[in-house]
Structure formats: C-alpha cells, structure tokens
C-alpha cells in the first residue's frame, strides 16, 4: 500500500531541503543536546517529518480541546457548587441572626409583661436560642474564617444566655436588678453578636459573588480550547489537502466534527447552566436575602417596640430605630409580596401588626403606659403578638421556600456539567486518536 507514493514528492525543495544533509554528520563527538536536536531535526525533516509534525499538532489539538473543555465545565461546576455552598452558608448566617433577634424579641416582650414570663414566651426564647446554637454549629464546619467569627459569636451567645438567666433569677426573687441584667443582655447581643454576624453575612455574600464570576470566567477555557483545536485541525487538513491528492482525510474530518459538535454542545450546556445560575441569583437568591433581611429587621423592630416601653419615656432612640426597621421591612415586602402567596400573607400580616404598633405608640404618647404595655403584650387574636406571629409564620414559610428553591436551582444548574466535562475530555482524546490515525495513514502512504 505504500507503492502509490507520488513521484512529485521530491519536487518541493523548500527550506527543509537544507536540513537534509544533516543525516550523515555522525563524525562529530556528539553533545547530548546535539544528539537530541539532531534527532528532532531528523524526525521532522522532509515531508514525512512535516507529516509527523502535523500528526503531533492534530493530536495535541484534540487533547487541548478535551482538557480545556474539561477544565471549563468542571470549573463552572465547581464554582456553582461553591456558590451553592456559600449561599447555603449565607442562609445559615442569616438564620442565626434571625433566631437571636427573635429570641431577644420574645425575651423583652416577656419582661414587659412582668411577673413570671408567660410559658409561651419562654419557650419561644428557648427555641430561638436552641436554633441559633444548632445553626452556629452547622455553619462552623464550612470555612475556617467563618468558624473563627462564629466561635466568637457562640461565646457572646453563651454570655448572653448567662445574663438572661441572671435576669430571670433576680426577677424571680422580685429584685429589680433583673432589669439591669436584661438590659445588659440585650445590649450585648446588639453590640457583640449581631454586628459580626452582619459582617460575616457580607463576606459570605462576596464569596457567592466571586463564585459567580469564576463560573462566568470558565467559558473562556472552552472558547480558547475550541478555537485552538479547530484552527490546528483545519490548518493541518488544508495543508494536507494541498499536499495530497485527496481533499478529505476521513479520521481528521471526524476528529474536527467531534471537536466542533462536542464543543458546541458543551458551550450550550454551559450557557444554559450559567443562565440558570444567573436567573437563580436574580430570583431565588435575592428573594432569600431580602426575606431574611426583612425577618431580621422585623424581629429587631419588635424588640425595639418592647424596649421603647421598657425605657418608659426615654425610649426615643428605640422608637426611631423601630421606624427605620419597619420601613425597611415594608419596602422589602412591598416588592416580595408579588412573588407568592406566603410573601403576600407576610406583607399583609406585617401591615396589620404595624397598625397595632401605631396604637401602642399613641397610647404611650398620651401617657397611658399601662394600656400601651397591655396592647404590646397581648396574645389575643388581634393583639400585637398574634399579628406578629402571623407575619413570622408566613415570612418563615416564604423564606424556606425560596431558600429551598435556591439550593435546588443551583444544584440543577450544576448537575449536567460534570458529566459533560468527562464527555468532552473523552471526546478530545477520541479526536486526538482519530487525528493521529488520520495523519499516520498519510505517513504510511508516503513511505
């Protein structure tokens, strides 16, 4: 089969002709590098040498495509998996904040009632602290930086609960010193636990952002790999077609087609995945963040309402803080209220609660402190606590829903990527093999 070698083969005496006499120079005492360069020069000398070079180029092209495509898809998969983990961590951090402020809101409200705290309020406080502690433990495993901050927060929570128990013990003895302990506890939470958690939330949010941008950058790997592979494959084929009688070299065409098709399919999959991730970010992710913020601010506002009354005539700062917080909650829920039934219910419940709050403030403003307190601690159906409870339940459901959707969407955006990464790698190897075969056929034909 090597008999068909065309005689015209000797005609193109281009630059490689000069390298032809390199062969007989065996007399010189060979340096190692000379041997190597000599061998290399010999290997790529003449048309067979160039064919060999072309073969290598096409094999490398296939491998580059496979590798780059693999890196592209798995980078995006990894980035989205980070985004998912960080988003989950963010939800945990916000949950800790929410649980702590909700525990504090129950506590301050129970204190306002006077006497032994209502069992329900005590239970709500305890549930809040338990949930916060559990989430603190869950969140600490993920990241060393987070773990350091969370360990500090955990320490503050321990001190906080200690102060609360001192307040209760004094309270049970009928000592007004309990009020001082309570004030210390509440202040401690606000100065030493909530701000670091807020900062941590911001830094985790940055991590999500970074994960998103490294996911977006992953496309570059695919584009570079695909472009390099296609240029190399096509260039070699064009060159071969110029040299050989046959225009098409089937294995090379196949290799090119594989690279092209797999590349385009992978690009499609990756684009789908990114757009799904992006829409998740604009949708479930932001909804989750907003709802979490709304809940934190709402519980904080509820505490501020109680603290305003506890401060009895000196609570202007707390009252102002209520107004800020509740305006923020209102703005968030006005937007979120369009997203679903739970969000809408949360919005309506919060509005209903703020009307009770207005009545509380009106009573206190007129000097009817006792009536204001009675209204603020009222657990009946239309009382402040019941209405706030409705908001808590509805917004909690909405938050669970959107954070569940967030997890699910990011998982599904990521899930096909790894499979396609391997497919692309295998395709690249296959293209390399095919290309190698294709060129070596020509090489054999040439001998």
């Amino acid at each position, binding site marked *: 089969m090597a008999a068909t070698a065309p005689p015209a083969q000797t005609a193109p005496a281009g630059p490689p002709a000069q390298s032809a006499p390199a062969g007989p120079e065996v007399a010189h005492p060979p340096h190692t590098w000379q041997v190597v360069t000599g061998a290399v020069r010999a290997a790529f000398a003449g048309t067979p040498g160039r064919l060999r070079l072309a073969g290598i180029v096409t094999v490398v092209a296939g491998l580059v495509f496979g590798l780059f495509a693999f890196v592209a898809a798995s980078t995006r998969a990894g980035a989205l998996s980070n985004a998912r983990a960080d988003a989950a961590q963010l939800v945990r951090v916000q949950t800790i904040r929410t649980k702590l402020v909700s525990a504090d809101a129950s506590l301050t409200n129970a204190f306002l009632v006077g006497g032994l705290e209502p069992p329900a309020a005590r239970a709500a406080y305890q549930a809040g602290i338990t949930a916060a502690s559990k989430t603190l433990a869950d969140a600490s495993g993920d990241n060393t930086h987070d773990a350091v901050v969370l360990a500090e927060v955990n320490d503050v929570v321990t001190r906080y609960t200690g102060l609360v128990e001192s307040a209760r013990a004094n309270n049970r*003895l009928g000592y007004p010193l309990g009020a*001082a302990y309570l004030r210390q506890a509440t202040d401690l939470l606000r100065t030493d636990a909530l701000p670091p958690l807020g900062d941590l939330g911001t830094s985790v949010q940055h991590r999500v952002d970074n994960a998103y941008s490294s996911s977006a950058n992953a496309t570059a790997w695919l584009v570079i790999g695909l472009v390099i592979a296609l240029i190399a494959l096509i260039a070699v084929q064009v060159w071969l077609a110029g040299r050989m009688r046959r225009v098409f070299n089937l294995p090379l065409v196949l290799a090119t087609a594989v690279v092209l098709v797999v590349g385009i399919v992978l690009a499609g999959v990756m684009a789908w995945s990114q757009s799904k991730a992006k829409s998740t970010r604009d949708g479930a992710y932001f909804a989750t963040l907003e709802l979490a913020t709304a809940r934190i601010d709402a519980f904080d506002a509820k505490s501020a309402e109680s603290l305003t009354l506890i401060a009895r005539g000196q609570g202007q700062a*707390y009252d102002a803080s209520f107004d800020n917080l509740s305006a923020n909650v209102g703005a968030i829920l006005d937007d979120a209220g369009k997203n679903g039934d739970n969000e809408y219910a949360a919005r309506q419940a919060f509005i209903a609660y703020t009307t009770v709050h207005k009545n509380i403030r009106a009573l206190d403003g007129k000097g009817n402190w006792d009536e204001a307190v009675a209204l603020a601690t009222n657990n009946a159906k239309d009382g402040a606590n019941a209405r706030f409870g409705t908001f808590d339940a509805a917004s909690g459901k909405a938050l669970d829903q959107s954070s569940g959707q967030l997890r699910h969407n990011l998982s599904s955006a990521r899930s096909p990527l790894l499979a396609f990464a391997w497919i692309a790698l295998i395709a690249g190897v296959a293209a390399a093999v095919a290309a190698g075969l294709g060129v070596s056929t020509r090489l054999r034909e040439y001998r």
Partner: protein
Amino acid sequence: MTSERFPAETTKVRRRGSSSRRGSWLILAGAAAVTALVAGCSAGSTPTLPTVAPPSTSSAPPASTPPARPGCSDDNTTRVESYDPSTVTTGPALERIKRAGKLKVGVSADNLLFGYRNPIKGTLEGFDIDMVNEVAKTIFGSAQGRVQYVVENFAQRIPDLQAGRVDLVADIMTINCIRWNQIAFSAEYFHAGQQILVRRNSYNSIKQMNGKKVCTGAGSTGFDNLVKNYKQVQRVVVNDISDCMVLFQQGAVEGVISDNTVVQGFAAQDPYAVVLPDLLSPEPYGLGINKKDVDLVRFVNNLLEQMRADGDWQRIHDKWVRSDKNGQPQPVYGRALP
C-alpha cells in the same frame, strides 16, 4: 395581675431589704469631717469600661455645670433653702398640669427602695413613687391615672426638667448649689448620705481602695465626690446606676459608690455585698422642679408641711426605710423669689 400569686415574695423583698440595712443608717454627724479628709490626692483616671448604655443621649459632663450662685454654700443650710410654702392652688405650672390632666414625673425604675419596677407586679413602687402620688392626689383629688412616669437615669433628670419633658423629678435627687442654678427644689424631704458598697470581708473603708475600680452613675453626686475627693480611686461610670451592681456582681468593679438609698437597695438584693458604715457626704433630697415653676415648688412645700402634720410622710418612710433614724428633715425656707 399575677400579684396575688406571690404575696410571700413581695414581702420577702422588703424584709430582706430592711434586715441587711440594719445599723447602716447612721446619723450624718461626721459627714462634713469625712468630706474634708480626703482632699489632695493625685489625678485619677476614668477608664472607659462597659458603658452599658441604651441609646440615650444625655450624660451631662460635670465640667459644663455652671458655678454655684453666690450666697449659697453646700456646707450649710443655704443649699436646702427653698421658697416659702403657699396654700395657693393656682399658678401657671399648676394650671398647665391640670390642663394636661396628668402630672409628668421623672423617676427611677431600678432603685429598690425609692423608685423601682416591681418585677412581679410590673408596677413602679418606692418612697419617691409614693411622694409623687401624694403630689398628684393633692392636685387632682386622686392619683389614679393622673401620673405619667418617665423613667430616667441620673444624668437625664436635669435636662428633662429644663426641657419641660417632666413637671417634677422624684428620683433621690440631691439638693446642691450648682443644681439650684439649673432647676428649683422643694424643701428637703429625705436626708440621705453617700456610702460605698463592697464585697463582704473585702474592704473596711474607701481609703483602702486607691487604684481599685469603683463604679458610679454619670451625672450623680457620687461621681462628683469621686472626682473631688477620691482621685486615686479608678472611676467606672455607667449611665444607669443598676449597671454598677451588674458589674459588681460580675467582678468587674470592687465597689459601688452612691447614696445609701441606692446601695442599701443593692445590698438587699445581694447577700455577698455589704455597705460600709462611713458616710462619705450628706445628701439632702428635694423634689426637682423647673426653675420657672415657682408656684409648683411652693405648692409642694405646703404639701410637705401637711404630710408632716398628718403623718403621711412618716407612713411612707416607715413603709420603705423604717430603720432610717432621721425623721422628716426640718425645712429651710426664705429663698428669695426669682
């Protein structure tokens, strides 16, 4: 609403309060000597320790207080000199209060004997609260629903009076010459003194506490006393005096200096705390009133006379500080009307 369920506890507080107060209400005979004895120490420091401050704004720096009015001296009875009592029940301030339908009073809510929120009942109680109710009763015929309480820390009392946020301050307020420049006072209605609270078996006198941390309230005479007379004691200043007791129980400070009306109340809430017998300065209490409300001052002074006559003062006294041996202070009148 829960009060009926805890009658035993309510009385227990009072009993404990009185029992640990035993023997500490000394006559303030040697008080002037005590104040004189500690002058001339080197500069003290004011460490910024956990200033447990809810977002309240006013903690009046003592540096900005105006000088005492000439002719008034904190060393003699000129400081407690108030306006003559008057039986007239009308006047701009009284009319204003009647129009409002409520008497707005500044009180404390964390001072076990004089003004505190009973944690069990949720209501405000104490010597000062009873005094307020007497005033409201005399103005309106009944105190029921006629008192609007504004809970204050020490530093908020004078600014609140000056701004008209309250008509009256009944919050263990010491009468002195500097304050007479800012507000007006009724005649003296209780005679207290400053004492220091320490851990049982730790110190015998404030003189042993140089370099130690002692807590006091911002805008209080205890703070002034530390600055003036005990410079080597490390001051820890908080807005709400009960935060001092929290710091004390946490071991962050070794002593709390304030009026015995306050520290005796603290000691009643902590069996490991004792009040040292030294009286560090005399603290005559008056009801604080806006400088312009002279009619209210004279009205209240008349009421104090009535309470002396009909035994109401003694009744309130015995209800809260039975073991105190000072009777109702003799009033000093004759302050020139503005």
